[in-house]
């Protein structure tokens, strides 16, 4: 019997101990509850790895100018990984003051935490349409990072050698003709193939490629996509043609081709002539061949037959959000910092020149945009030749894990296009019941 007592007391000690441990954790994340205007700590939890260093530098500057404000930055890269890490961060009780949301789904998920940003200068300066994804019941719940766009990035030199004028490519027919010309001269141009289609990266096929053909159904509005109970694949045939073209003339096997093979190994070394990617690849290409990245790449539109054949999809990849459940002072200082970053002269200069962003706000000297892809995208946006980004409005996981996977099946001849459309429609409807 004695052993039972001992066991019981041990268990109770355990329970008390774990409660005590849990209690240690739930302290206010500011470390102190002083409403003293002078001292405030902002924890930033953000996703963009590419500008981590530049961002840390600008934060140091801001801290120097605003004594009493301390900013800690944590960066976790990659779309999915960031979502995972953010949830863990909140679950652990150390809630960040500033974090990122991607679109309507995130806004719905984090609704209880998001502060209204309507009172910031930055929200008023944001370009038309960039706030669609984070506007809810009249409140603006996030501020755009920047604009990004994607299309068909091509190798200027190879086009020249093959005698193709990139300016003549305005629709699907002319694109197909150019691809055939390149393919005929494969040996002369010393290329492996015309395209590199990374079907292993389901975000390239299931999110980006599909978006160009699905966005028109929702008028390019992410909220419409988010509220939609079904998806029609109205431009499904055009999508099939575009996918088939890339697959037929791509380096094989496409289903195991990944991002680094596509961009670094094949495109940057001139082994393929065209890839479907966005301005974020500039850094990767420059890492292999700086000169090539600066002088020899251009951007062609993605032809959506029956809609717009000379446009590229442009959108906002992520938004800054402020956690309203923290101390009032912290919320106010967080907004102040974001305003400073996007609307002060110094902040603007940093955003353009150090971050190399395509700004999503008015009042920037856009002649300072440095890399050729961002320049081209900005030009498309100026000419109103854009398609919206609606993939943030797809059901959770639908684009990558359902459609992207079905595209892999289709490319492996394990699924017909009709079945792909049917299956994908069904999983969309199931998710939106």
């Amino acid at each position, binding site marked *: 019997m004695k*052993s039972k007592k001992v066991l019981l007391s041990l268990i109770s000690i355990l329970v008390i*101990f774990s409660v005590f441990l849990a209690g240690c954790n739930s302290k206010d994340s500011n470390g102190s509850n002083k409403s003293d205007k002078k001292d405030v700590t902002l924890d930033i939890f953000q996703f963009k790895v590419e500008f981590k260093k530049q961002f840390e530098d600008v934060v140091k500057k801001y801290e120097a100018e605003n004594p009493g404000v301390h900013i800690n930055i944590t960066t976790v890269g990659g779309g999915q990984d960031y979502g995972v890490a953010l949830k863990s961060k909140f679950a652990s009780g150390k809630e960040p003051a500033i974090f990122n949301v991607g679109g309507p789904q995130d806004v719905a998920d984090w609704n209880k935490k998001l502060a209204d940003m309507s009172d910031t200068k930055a929200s008023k300066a944001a370009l038309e349409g960039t706030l669609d994804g984070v506007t809810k019941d009249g409140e603006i719940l996030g501020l755009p990072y920047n604009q990004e766009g994607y299309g068909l990035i091509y190798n200027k030199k190879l086009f020249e050698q093959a005698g193709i004028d990139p300016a003549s490519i305005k629709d699907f027919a002319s694109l197909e003709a150019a691809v055939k010309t390149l393919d005929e001269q494969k040996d002369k141009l010393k290329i492996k193939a015309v395209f590199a289609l990374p079907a292993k990266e389901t975000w390239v096929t299931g999110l980006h490629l599909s978006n160009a053909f699905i966005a028109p159904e929702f008028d390019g509005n992410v909220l419409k996509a988010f509220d939609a109970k079904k998806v029609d694949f109205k431009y499904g045939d055009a999508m099939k043609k575009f996918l088939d073209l890339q697959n037929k003339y791509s380096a094989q096997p496409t289903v195991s081709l990944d991002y680094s093979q596509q961009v670094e190994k094949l495109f940057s070394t001139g082994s393929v002539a065209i890839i479907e990617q966005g301005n974020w690849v500039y850094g990767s290409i420059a890492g292999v061949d700086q000169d090539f990245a600066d002088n020899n790449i251009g951007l062609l539109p993605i032809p959506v037959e029956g809609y717009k054949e000379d446009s590229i999809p442009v959108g906002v990849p992520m938004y800054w959000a402020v956690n309203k459940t923290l101390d009032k002072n912290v919320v106010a200082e967080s907004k102040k910092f974001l305003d400073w970053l996007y609307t002060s002269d110094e902040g603007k200069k940093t955003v353009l020149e150090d971050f190399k962003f395509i700004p999503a706000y008015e009042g920037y000297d856009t002649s300072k945009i440095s890399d050729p892809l961002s320049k081209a995208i900005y030009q498309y946006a100026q000419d109103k030749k854009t398609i919206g980004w609606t993939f943030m409005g797809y059901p959770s996981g639908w684009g990558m894990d359902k459609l992207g996977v079905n595209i892999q099946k289709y490319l492996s001849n394990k699924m017909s296009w009709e079945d792909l459309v049917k299956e994908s429609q069904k999983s969309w409807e199931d998710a939106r019941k």
Partner: protein
Amino acid sequence: MRTKDISYWLFLAPALLALSLVVIVPLAMGIYYSFTDWNGIDSSGFIGFQNYIDLFKDKAFMDALWFTVKFAIVSIILINFFGFSLALIVTSKIKSSKFLRTIFFMPNLIGGLILGFIWQFIFTEIFSSIGEMFGIENLQGWLSTTNTGFWGLVILMSWQMSGYIMIIYIAYLESVPGELLEAAQIDGASPFQRLRYIILPLVAPAFTVSMFLTLSNSFKLYDQNLSLTGGGPFDSTQMVAMEIFKTAFSANQMAYAQAKAVVFFIIVAAISLTQVYFNKKKEVEM
């Protein structure tokens, strides 16, 4: 019984505390969550057995489970075969056996994620170059089909784990008394008979341990799977751990994934316990 002693429990307390905090409490919480519709942020409460009913109709989960079972069977056989063979080689009278032990054990010291990427390069680049040079069709396009993905995983896993399992076999092989083997030799037993009637029964406990380790490791494989094939093409080389992770973090169905994890836990526990029970029967007392 010693358990009446207070000192016995005192010595056990730190270990018990650690175990309960990192294993038992999370397990209990996990089982609790699996009956809710928690999405990682908030939950609307209990939904009974709905998650469990759904998962048995979930084709993706069942496919992953079946793939994992096939993988586990092949891996267990191959790893134990190679591990035992290597152990026999390095405990025999060859030179450089110390050096060989180190070499065979080395793959184990590299993390699974890194190994996955290294082998991915070997399969996709080196294999296809060799294939192109000698015109061997079968070496091209590795990891782009379900079959090559499966064998790729098996090769990677066998290469990584055989050395580790070898160490366990070595320990038991070296404890086999020399005089027994010598007596058998004098009685005219062939090398094969010595292996079959003396060595194997005496190292039976090693088989119990090794098979348990390879079984649970093959079932729980995640990082090699992620970096080598990423589940591709079309999720056909996706193992259970990865499927559960995706359910939790990309489809945001935490509670549903937790239910899958509970089922997975029960399956692995049942199989391992059965295996240990049958293996134990084969062990002999000296």
